[in-house]
C-alpha cells in the first residue's frame, strides 16, 4: 500500500471511514481536476499511481465523461464494479467537495466473484434438473444417488394437493423433516400453513399445474433457535418428462454462510460510504452557512454606508441608518469571533426546529423583520419592498434564526434580479395542501396545492419580483447547489442561497419552489407547516 502524503482534511476522513474496510484507493482533486493528494493502493486495481498535479483523467482515463473539464461536480457519481486490466474490481465514487472533487475506490472483487459463482451454481442446478427431468426420477435415483448425495439434496414427489412423498434414501438431516403415514409412506411434514415451505409449495403447485419447463426456486430460508445450529435450506420445484411433480430440498448452509459473508462486507462498505456522504454533506452545508452569514450583513452595511455618503449626517434618518450599520457591523464581528463555535453548532442547529405554537417562530413577524432590515438595500437600488400579510398569528414549524436566513436569501435573490423602479412584494397567505411525507420533492417549478377536505392549512410565502424570471431549462434545478438562474444579471452570486433554503425548509417538513409570476417576473415560494 502506498501513501504519498499524510492524509488531512477530507483525505483523512476518507482514510478513517473507508480504508479500514479493505483495499481502497483515494484521491483529492482541485477545481481543475488535478490531483492534490492521493493514497491507498492504486496498483491493486491495475491503475498507475498518479502524480500530484497530474490531470485526473490522464491518471485514470475511465473518468472521461464522468468528470467535468473544470469546476464542481454536480452531485455524487458512482461507477459500479469497474474492472481494469489485471486489477481488482472497484466501486468508484466521486464526491463534490468545497474545493474540488474527492475520489474513492474500494475493492468489490469478492462480490463480483460471488455473483459469478451464483450464476455458475444456477447453471449447474439447471443441468442437474434437466438431467432429472430427461431421465425420469426413478432412474435418476437408482443411477445417480451419488450425485444427489453430493449435492446434499433430498427428493420428494408431490401429489395434486401438494403432499410430498420422499423418494430414495434420505440423508439424516432430511429424515427429521418427514413423518410416516398409515400407508407406510414417508411424507414431508407440513406446518401450520404459515411456514416458509408451505408458502413455497403454493407457488410450486401453480408452477407444476402450468406445466412449465425449467425449475422454480424458493430462495434461501433458515430455521433454528439461538442455542442450536441454524439450518438453511433452499427448495426447487421441477416437472419431469413423465409429468411427475418433484420437489428437491437442499441444505445450503455453506453457501448461505458464504453469501452472508460477501453481502455483509458489501453492506458494511455501503454503510461506511453513507457515513462519509453524511460528513461531506455537513461540511458543504457549513460552507454555505458561513458564506451567507458573512455576506448578508455585509451587503446591508455597504448599502447603508453608500446612502450615508450622499446625505447630511445631522438628519434623524441618517442617524437611524448609522445605528443600523453599527448593529450589522457588530453582528459580523461577533460571527467572526464565534466562527469556530459555529462550525460545530451549525449542523446541529440546521437539524432542529420548533413544532409547538407557543415557542415556534412567527412567519408574519419574520416577514416584517425582513422588510424593515432589507429596506435600505432596496432603497439604494431604487426598488420598492412591500409586504402583504393576511391576519395572523403565523406560528410555523421552523427554527427562528434559520427562518430569517431563508427569508433573507429569498428577498436578497429578488433584490438581485429586480430592475430599478420595480417593486418586490412578499405575500403571506394560507394554502391548503396534504403534508408531503416523502423526503425531497421540493424542486417542482410550479405549485398546485390540492384542496380536498383532508388537506391541512399551511402557510405560504411568495416572494414576487418583476425581474426576468428563471430560464425554463433551469426552473427544475434552481434550488440545487451552485445553480444560478441562467440570467446574465446573476453574475457574482455563488448559487448557494436557494440550496440552503431548500435544505432548511425540507428539514422542517415544508416545501419550496418556483413559478413564473403572472404578468412577468419570478415567484419563489415556500410552504411551511403550522405549528400547533
Amino acid at each position, binding site marked *: 500500500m502506498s501513501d504519498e502524503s499524510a492524509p488531512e482534511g477530507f483525505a483523512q476522513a476518507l482514510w478513517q471511514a473507508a480504508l479500514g474496510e479493505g483495499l481502497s484507493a483515494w484521491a483529492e482533486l482541485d477545481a481543475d481536476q488535478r490531483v492534490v493528494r492521493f493514497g491507498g493502493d492504486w496498483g491493486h486495481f491495475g491503475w498507475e499511481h498518479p502524480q500530484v498535479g497530474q490531470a485526473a483523467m490522464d491518471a485514470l482515463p475511465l473518468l472521461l465523461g464522468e468528470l467535468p473539464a473544470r469546476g464542481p461536480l454536480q452531485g455524487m457519481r458512482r461507477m459500479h464494479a469497474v474492472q481494469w486490466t489485471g486489477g481488482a474490481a472497484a466501486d468508484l465514487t466521486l464526491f463534490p467537495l468545497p474545493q474540488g472533487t474527492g475520489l474513492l475506490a474500494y475493492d468489490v472483487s469478492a462480490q463480483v466473484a460471488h455473483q459469478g459463482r451464483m450464476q455458475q451454481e444456477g447453471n449447474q442446478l439447471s443441468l442437474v434438473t434437466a438431467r432429472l427431468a430427461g431421465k425420469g426420477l426413478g432412474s435418476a435415483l437408482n443411477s445417480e444417488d451419488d450425485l444427489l448425495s453430493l449435492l446434499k439434496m433430498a427428493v420428494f414427489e408431490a401429489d395434486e394437493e401438494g403432499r410430498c412423498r420422499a423418494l430414495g434414501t434420505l440423508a439424516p438431516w432430511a429424515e427429521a423433516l418427514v413423518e410416516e403415514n398409515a400407508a407406510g409412506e414417508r411424507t414431508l411434514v407440513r406446518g401450520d400453513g404459515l411456514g416458509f415451505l408451505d*408458502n413455497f409449495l403454493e407457488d410450486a403447485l401453480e408452477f407444476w399445474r402450468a406445466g412449465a419447463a425449467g425449475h422454480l426456486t424458493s430462495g434461501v430460508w433458515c430455521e433454528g433457535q439461538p442455542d442450536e445450529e441454524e439450518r438453511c435450506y433452499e427448495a426447487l420445484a421441477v416437472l419431469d418428462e413423465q409429468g411427475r411433480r418433484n420437489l428437491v430440498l437442499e441444505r445450503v448452509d455453506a453457501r448461505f454462510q458464504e453469501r452472508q459473508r460477501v453481502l455483509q462486507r458489501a453492506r458494511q462498505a455501503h454503510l461506511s460510504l453513507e457515513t462519509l456522504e453524511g460528513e461531506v454533506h455537513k461540511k458543504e452545508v457549513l460552507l454555505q452557512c458561513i458564506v451567507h452569514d458573512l455576506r448578508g450583513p455585509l451587503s446591508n452595511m455597504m448599502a447603508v454606508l453608500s446612502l450615508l455618503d450622499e446625505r447630511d449626517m445631522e438628519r434623524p434618518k441618517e442617524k437611524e441608518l448609522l445605528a443600523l450599520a453599527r448593529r450589522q457591523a457588530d453582528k459580523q464581528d461577533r460571527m467572526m469571533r464565534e466562527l469556530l463555535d459555529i462550525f460545530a453548532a451549525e449542523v446541529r442547529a440546521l*437539524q432542529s426546529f420548533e413544532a409547538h405554537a407557543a415557542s415556534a417562530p412567527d412567519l408574519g413577524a419574520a416577514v416584517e423583520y425582513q422588510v424593515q432590515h432589507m429596506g435600505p438595500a432596496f432603497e439604494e437600488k431604487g426598488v420598492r419592498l412591500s409586504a402583504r400579510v393576511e391576519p395572523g398569528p403565523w406560528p410555523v414549524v421552523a427554527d427562528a434564526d434559520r427562518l430569517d436566513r431563508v427569508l433573507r436569501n429569498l428577498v436578497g435573490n429578488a433584490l438581485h434580479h429586480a430592475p430599478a423602479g420595480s417593486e418586490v412584494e412578499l405575500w403571506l397567505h394560507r394554502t391548503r395542501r396534504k403534508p408531503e411525507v416523502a423526503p425531497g420533492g421540493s424542486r417542482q417549478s410550479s405549485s398546485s396545492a390540492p384542496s380536498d377536505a383532508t388537506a391541512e392549512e399551511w402557510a405560504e410565502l411568495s416572494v414576487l419580483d418583476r425581474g426576468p424570471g428563471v430560464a425554463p431549462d433551469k426552473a427544475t434545478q434552481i434550488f440545487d447547489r451552485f445553480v444560478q438562474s441562467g440570467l446574465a444579471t446573476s453574475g457574482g452570486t455563488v448559487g448557494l442561497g436557494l440550496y440552503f433554503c431548500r435544505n432548511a425548509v425540507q428539514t422542517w417538513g415544508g416545501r419550496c419552489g418556483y413559478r413564473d409570476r403572472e404578468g412577468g417576473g419570478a415567484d419563489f415560494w415556500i410552504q411551511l407547516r403550522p405549528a400547533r
Partner: protein
Amino acid sequence: MIRKKICLLGSFAVGKTSLVRRFVHSEFSDRYQTTVGVKVDKKLVRVEDQDVSLVIWDLHGEDRWQTVRTSYLRGASGALLVADGTRLETLEVVRGLSQTFLDMNPKATVRVLVNKLDLLESFAIPQEEWRARIDWAPMAFTSAKTGEGVEEAFEALARGGSA
C-alpha cells in the same frame, strides 16, 4: 389457536433481526449480521385472553443486492416496517415496501417502527419530524438494544389485522 404471520420489512442494517431476537429470545447483540433470505421464528403471545401464535418472517434487507420476493408476503396478517432513525433514506424504502405489502395483503395491518432509539442523539431528524413524515401509518419508536417499544409493536400486530 389463532395463528398470524407477521413480516419484518425494511432496508438493510435497520435492525429487523435484532427486533425479532429481542422479542422472541430477549437477546441483543451489537454485532451487525446481515440476513440472507428469510429467517422464520415463532412466538406464542396472549392477547385479550387468547393465545396467538405469531409466525415471524424476518426478511432480508432490501437493497441493490437483494430484493424482497412478493410471494414471501402472501398470507401475512401484518407487517412491521422498520426504518433506522439515524438514516433518513431508510424511510423511502419503508414507504415502497409498505405499498408492496398492502397490495398483496389489503386487509393486513402495517406499523412503522423507527428503530435505534438508543441512538437518539444521532437521529437524522428530530422525533417530531419522523412523526410528521410518517402520518400514513401507525408508527412508534423502538430500540432493540434497550427493548423499548418492542413488545408493544409486536403485540399491536397480534391484536389487529387479518390476512
